[in-house]
């Protein structure tokens, strides 16, 4: 069993739905994005091409973050998910420098979206689950997977660009899409073996 995701760049138009739904699901503090959208532009007028790249942790087969972690807090689970044990993390942020997908964020101090006005009722409840001084990252919504639900970003994506499933199962939707649409991971040349594939725009 190896959880994986396929993101269809032909469908995605950069509506930030994944970013905000993930933020709401995990109550991530300001500046922490388990999922976010990168918007870039290539080409020259008038042959211009917009690229909308939804980013998240790629849950690599050989995670550079796991290698550099000095305390063993980062661990690759048998189902493929790369997660952080928040009791072990020492907050050295080495993993943030090793991750080529910028998927890790440091929760340096208690911070709220309305600043000096203090935490909202939602933040007071939600941020309690995130200890300060440790690194945070996407875990493919492990808590939802346990209840048989799909990750929040997949469920909300208005254009159905995100598909989730088992990469080891050749019959799964993700495997089929990767084959049919020549799915490619981001930065394959780095040899990290990501579990998130992008279908060309």
């Amino acid at each position, binding site marked *: 069993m190896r959880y994986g995701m396929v993101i269809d760049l032909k469908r995605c138009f950069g509506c930030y739905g994944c970013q905000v739904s993930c933020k709401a699901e995990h109550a991530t503090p*300001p*500046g922490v994005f388990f999922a*976010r959208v*990168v918007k*870039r*532009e*290539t080409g020259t007028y008038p042959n211009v091409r917009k*690229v909308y*790249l939804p*980013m998240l942790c790629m849950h690599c087969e050989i995670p*550079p973050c*796991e*290698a*550099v*972690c*000095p*305390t*063993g*807090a980062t661990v690759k689970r048998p189902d493929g998910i790369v997660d952080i044990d928040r009791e*072990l*993390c*020492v*907050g*050295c*942020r*080495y993993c*943030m*420098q*090793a*991750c*080529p*997908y*910028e998927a890790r964020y*440091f*929760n*340096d*101090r208690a*911070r*709220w979206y309305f*600043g*000096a006005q203090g935490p909202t009722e939602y933040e007071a409840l939600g941020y309690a689950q995130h200890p*300060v*001084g*440790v*690194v945070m990252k996407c875990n493919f919504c492990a808590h939802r997977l346990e209840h048989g639900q799909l990750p929040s970003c997949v469920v909300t994506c208005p254009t159905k660009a995100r598909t989730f499933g088992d990469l080891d199962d050749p019959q799964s939707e993700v495997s089929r899409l990767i084959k049919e649409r020549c799915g490619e991971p*981001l*930065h394959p040349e*780095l040899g*990290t073996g990501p579990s998130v594939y992008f279908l060309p725009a």
Partner: protein
Amino acid sequence: MGVFTRPYDTLLDDFQETARPQREWVDGRGLLLIAGHFLSGVGAGGWAFASAFGYLPGEVASVLLLAASGLAHLLFLGRPGRFWRMVKVRTSWVGRGFLGLTLALAAAVAYLALTLATGRDDTAAAGALWTLSLLGAVVVMLYKGNVYAVCRAIPFWNSSLLPILYVAYALRGGVALLLLFLPWWGAGVDQGLLELLELWIGLSAGVCILFYLTIMASASVGARRSVEDLLRGRVAAAFYGGVVALGLVVPLLVGLWNVVTPVSLGLLALVGAASLSGDFYVKYAIAKAGRYLPHVPGAR
């Protein structure tokens, strides 16, 4: 958000960049880590040379520097209380660096205590402790460069040359530390030998940098943006002022002048100080110029 908004605002602006600058290991408390890398380098180098010459003040200074470096690392950590967990040496350079630093520090302190107590430094125990401390120092010197070099996320750091550069700087830092003590050191050391050593290491460091930069410039888009930061961008002041002028030009000039006509010890101390600050600025500049890999080839 109050006073802490600056990093948040900076992060949001950074996302607009095609190659996002890394901030964690240089801005805010990140500066502690850079200080830690600088101090550990100089401390390790200093210990190696000072103990080789048996110059007590140099040895004590090196130990203090190593301790200070350890403290700086601890203060940088998000959860300092868990420092003892950083023991996974199989794959993590931070783990190796931590153990290296601990070994070097412990062995050095023990060696000093022993030699001071017995008054002799040639006993078998002192010899063993000294070897262990040297081993620790070497690990520290190697750890600093490699900790950056393995980061494939930041092309500018991801180069096998960086460890060599940082080792060269550590050695040079050690020599510079001793130079600092020259006015108080007096005749006990052969000034000429030290000077040449300093010159050689200085040159080698300079060559390393140039070699490093030229390769990196062509390596990939990500690295080119970092080099632009270094040479023309937001890190140019630290690079030209700190690394080049203070770190290389001043010591080389004084060094060459000294070859022509011996200069005062005070001036040589100045050389030491200058090259030490150069050493700090190299680490600061290379950390500051680090940018993450761009994700969309050909994008502005």
